[in-house]
């Protein structure tokens, strides 16, 4: 196993696990607290559409995915605000439209479709050094923005109306989180694939939320769970020769289950006792 770490594909996979785990969990904490977990699914399918447009038009699929997710991110917030409906409804509509258009283009894509389909299933072992570099740059930007604007992001995550009434530029941060989540999802698409990436957004954040009583610890613990899930999943998939993306998601789901069972927050608040 150690010898494998000397091989460049495994180094790329480990780096992608670390970078992807950190940035996906950070965005996961935000979308979980904003109660728009559907954002991950919508963005992954927008990324899939963008990548297929890239393949169809002959440019880099990663660039297409980044552009499509950035555009989706710019549309979701303002449309939801002005349509008088919840962001989740708008995400559902954009998700289905993106999926329909992606399948339409996929059917018309000439030649083998394996490169496009890899975006659905994910292939962390084939991730290139350039893709790792893009993911690393996005992760650094996410961590930097989170550190600099932590108090504003905390206020917006707590309650957008209260943040606005306190004089905070709530729209900038709210829409900013949505746009950045799109970039994170599109850059991380190769780790577990479009179908499963939403779970890597939601599971570590919710597992950490069972354990933490402070917001900054929630970001740290969610990152540890996400990176741990990716690395453990990578090792297990090598040992048992099973698909990496699926194992990573199952490990993160197991982490949530364990956190739920042993949650000190749940036991202290007695939340389970309030059920009928």
């Amino acid at each position, binding site marked *: 196993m150690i010898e494998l770490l000397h091989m460049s594909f495994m180094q790329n996979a480990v780096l992608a696990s670390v970078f992807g785990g950190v940035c996906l969990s950070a965005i996961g904490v935000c979308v979980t607290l904003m*109660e728009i977990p559907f954002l991950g699914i919508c963005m992954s399918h927008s990324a899939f559409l963008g990548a297929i447009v890239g393949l169809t038009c002959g440019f880099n699929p990663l660039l297409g995915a980044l552009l499509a997710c950035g555009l989706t991110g710019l549309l979701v917030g303002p449309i939801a605000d002005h349509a008088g409906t919840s962001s989740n409804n708008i995400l559902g509509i954009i998700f289905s439209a993106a999926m329909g258009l992606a399948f339409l283009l996929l059917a018309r894509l000439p030649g083998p479709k394996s490169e496009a389909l890899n975006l659905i299933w994910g292939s962390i072992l084939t991730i290139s050094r350039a893709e790792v570099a893009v993911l690393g740059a996005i992760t650094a930007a996410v961590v930097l923005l989170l550190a600099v604007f932590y*108090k504003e992001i905390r206020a917006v995550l707590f309650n957008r*109306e*209260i943040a*606005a*009434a306190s*004089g905070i530029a709530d729209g900038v941060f709210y829409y900013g989180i949505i746009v950045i989540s799109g970039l994170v999802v599109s850059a991380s698409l190769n780790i577990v694939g479009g179908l499963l990436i939403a779970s890597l957004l939601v599971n570590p954040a919710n597992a950490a939320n069972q354990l933490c009583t402070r917001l900054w610890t929630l970001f740290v613990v969610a990152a540890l769970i996400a990176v741990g899930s990716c690395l453990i999943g990578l090792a297990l998939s090598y040992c048992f020769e099973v698909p990496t993306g699926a194992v990573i998601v199952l490990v993160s789901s197991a982490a949530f289950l364990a956190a739920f069972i042993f949650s000190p927050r749940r036991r202290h608040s007695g939340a389970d006792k309030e059920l009928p």
Partner: protein
Amino acid sequence: MTTPATREQDAPMAGATPSVAAASTQGVPLLCEFRSVDVRIGRQPALCDLSFSIAGGDFLALVGSNGSGKTTVIRSILGFLRPQRGAVRVFGMDPAGRQRRLVRQRIGYVPQNPAMDMRMPICVRDLVSIGRCAHAGAGRRLGAADHAAIDAALAAVGISQLAARPLGQLSGGERQKAQIARALCQEPALLLLDEPTCNLDAAAQCDCMDLLSRLYTERRLPIVLVMHDIAALPATCARALVLERGRVAYDGAFAGLYEDEVLRFIYGPHPLAGLRAMRQASDDGDSRRHHD
């Protein structure tokens, strides 16, 4: 600015004493002014030709039935809603314009039933510190003055001992006090509270009203308090503005609220509720008359 008290048909309200509103603006700066304001929510008119003002030192009770436009007034003051006609000025600025964040920075706002996830992992001090974010500036850490303001706000509402407690472990009354502390730590020039006693038990309601009375008495902080139950209003509240279908039905001294015609605007076809409020008012009468 004196507001002509009007009824549904724009007829002058008998028994209103608009001189109180006028007196409150004499020699003190106007904080907020509505000039013939129309606000629609969708196609539904929420405020119709509404004119009134709030002066420094006012403790104004904003009352009326459901849908009368109380919350719309509060949201218009904050600039969340833009009038279709007329003008709203707060501290001499347009609250929905380019200077909206400057306006909001000077207003302490406690919303009605804020959609807060009480399972969110933040403590009382974190919540209160939201009030200092705009003062510190975007991307800048809170300074010593901000932390001092947070401590002072926690002490003012009597919840210093709860500073490190997670929000999910607070009672309803403690949560409301934390919200008031957040509003206070903005060091506001105007405090807006939208139904702050909503969903609180009787003791917590009294606590909340006592706190507002104390804040007004000690600091002379102008307060606009939206309430359904006029019997629960604190004795320090000297002025009342009654809204009905987005119009001013009464603007005057608090004692005038208990006139038959005004009670009808608040309680509709339920005069017994009005009578109960009057009885409650007569119990508080001595202290109320003292403040009037």
